[in-house]
């Protein structure tokens, strides 16, 4: 199974941070080959000097703790103004968008405006959250679980959403109508199996998940598991790669993101 790419990249930024001075700006445009060579230099130094090793370990740890820092829980806000305001603050701060019932979408640009007028939203439930591409992880999801009226949740291309997160979402099972997991690099068929709690789901997007080993089979099994839900997954034409000849206009078509 292909390891998620975004995850593997974790090592090189650490290296960049540690030896940025030595590499300078050329590192940004250096081809793949030289980058590999320099990485082995870092490895070599770490093998021979325990200080370098300790430094590299520290930098890796810091990289990981950054994600945890982003996924804080605004306990004070939650106690004072309720779960809706706290959830909205959290998602807007991460760079996502929120839709209160009967209101317009509030995007990350509307954060300052929301800060001034959030008091009127205290009792208005949140009905949709779009956290596409945010650094949301398991701990951060705790902010969304008290939103009992949440109907639409989009977690597209979230690099830290994994199978554990999907099993954590079960308190939303009664309200959720639409869920999008498209492009999450760490979601696999093992996590999709626990979506069977979501019997009210009407629309589920599981397209382009690189960690799923058999996308077509997984889609069929998920459709069997959720009979009343429309499952968006693999394109049927995409699965028929073995066709002897492809029409030429297919290759010219831009690859969908």
């Amino acid at each position, binding site marked *: *199974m292909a*390891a998620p790419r975004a*995850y*593997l990249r*974790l*090592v090189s930024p*650490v290296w960049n941070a540690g030896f940025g001075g030595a590499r300078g700006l050329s590192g940004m445009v250096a081809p793949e080959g030289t980058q590999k060579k320099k*990485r082995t230099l*870092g*490895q070599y130094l*770490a*093998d*021979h000097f*325990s200080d370098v*090793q*300790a430094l*590299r*370990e520290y930098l*890796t*740890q810091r990289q*990981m703790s950054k994600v945890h820092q982003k996924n804080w829980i605004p306990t004070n806000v939650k106690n004072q103004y309720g779960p809706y305001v706290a959830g909205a603050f959290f998602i807007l701060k991460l760079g996502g968008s929120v839709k209160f019932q009967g209101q317009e979408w509030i995007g990350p640009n509307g954060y300052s405006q929301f800060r001034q007028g959030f008091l009127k939203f205290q009792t208005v439930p949140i009905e949709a959250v779009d956290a596409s591409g945010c650094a949301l992880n*398991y701990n951060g999801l705790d902010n969304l679980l008290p939103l009992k009226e949440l109907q639409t949740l989009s977690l597209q291309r979230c690099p830290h959403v994994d*199978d*554990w997160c*999907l*099993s*954590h979402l*079960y308190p939303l099972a009664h309200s959720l109508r639409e869920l999008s997991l498209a492009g999450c690099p760490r979601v696999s*068929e*093992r*996590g*999709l*199996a*626990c979506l*069977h*709690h979501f019997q009210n789901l009407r629309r589920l997007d599981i397209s382009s998940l690189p960690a799923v*080993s*058999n996308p077509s*089979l*997984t889609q069929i*099994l*998920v459709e*069997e*598991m959720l009979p009343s839900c429309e499952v968006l997954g693999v394109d049927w034409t995409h699965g028929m790669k073995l066709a002897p000849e492809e029409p030429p206009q297919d290759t010219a078509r831009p690859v969908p993101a």
Partner: protein
Amino acid sequence: MPLRALRFGLCQGLLARWFGTRRGASTLDWHGKISEMKKKIQSILPGGTWDQLNDTGHLPPEQADVVIVGGGVLGLSVAYWLKRLEKQRGAIRVLVVERDHTYSQASTGLSVGGIRQQFSLPENIQLSLFSVNFLRNINEYLAVVDDPPLDLQFNPSGYLLLSSEKGAAVMESNVKVQREEGAKICLMSPEQLRYKFPWINTEGVALASYGMENEGWFDPWCLLQGLRRKVQAMGVLFCHGEVTRFVSSSDHMETAGGEKLTLKRIHEVHVKMDHSLEYQPVECAVVINAAGAWSGQVAELAGIGTGPPGTLQGIKLPVEPRKRYVYIWHCPQGPGLETPFVTDTSGAYFRREGLGNNYLGGRSPSEEEEPDSGNLDVDHDFFQEKVWPPLAQRVPAFETLKVRRAWAGYYDYNTFDQNGVVGPHPLVVNMYFATGFSGHGLQQAPAVGRAVAELVLQGRFQTIDLSSFLFNRFYWGEKVQESNVI
């Protein structure tokens, strides 16, 4: 004059020839010598391997602070937490001794790999909750710089425990304890069960408990390799050998009641190398017995249980190997993707294995029909007679199935109360146990490792209080009974 000329010529010729040969030879040798020197310098430099005449690289070191007997997931976890909780980097020298370096008989690799919180004892629930937290953040705990992240393959599908009318009250009180400890468990009536899992025949089921989160199964081999990799990067030493002898000193004492006691302290561990008679005595301060199913034998080597019966010296470590079979079968009409880890009222269990309608399951035999634990041969009749009938009755689709594969593994079975033994022995004061978990050792290993490491380093439990799992309970006869042993 001619003579002198002759002599001169001769000398010149000789000299020239001498120089010539000398020069010719030296140019040839010079390159060889330089590369030889280079090799030598490289091997002497830190990180190189110096080829000595008597290479003792395969032997364990002569001294270590902590010797861990058993390199399975429990032993490695103790090593990990010892290194992680040490005050100063490199302060403790830890040696892990493993007899079977391919792990062909180790319980870790042969396990089904389940993790659940549906226990009856609060300690077991806490251990399992801590471990699930460890497994969720495994790539932070076990991160090694430059190595790819681990793929634990965790299936968060939950456990479904079925109970007959007789056991319903016990199940209800267990679930209450589990919820108090923070586990996400819900109770289901037979009607709800039929609605949620239509493939189950609810005949004879009065109540079911189902784990919503943090329960499921994972790849035990991945956890073992991840721990091994991390522990090696932290500087723990490994040795492929067998512990054959403990050298200990003893102190004779008398209690206030007049009873004579012998306190022992282990000073040296003799490690015999694989396939040879060579052995190495290792001086040590603490020995950790994490030998799993064979930890009873290791305890006996240290003189535990050799005294007269009825005294503290005469109490053996009640851990012995018990053989358990695991079968994989194919059933095209079987339950789908939502299948949890189901445990029937009869004690038989099964779970889904992959996407291709394969299932994996087994059953613990009763005390009378316990198979011989001398080898790991599989008894296929056991499936036909004991496993299949209850499962086919519970899930009618399993009436047609085909067994694909089967294997057997060992439980480190605690015959006293089916719970782990943690902490020091009261008489052999520097032997610590981390064994006897009777089939749930894999899922609790991360937490147990931490508890033992805290006990060694700080002298008391800090994260989870495991005082009820101490060895003393065998002397007092206090059973801490766990009712949910699968």
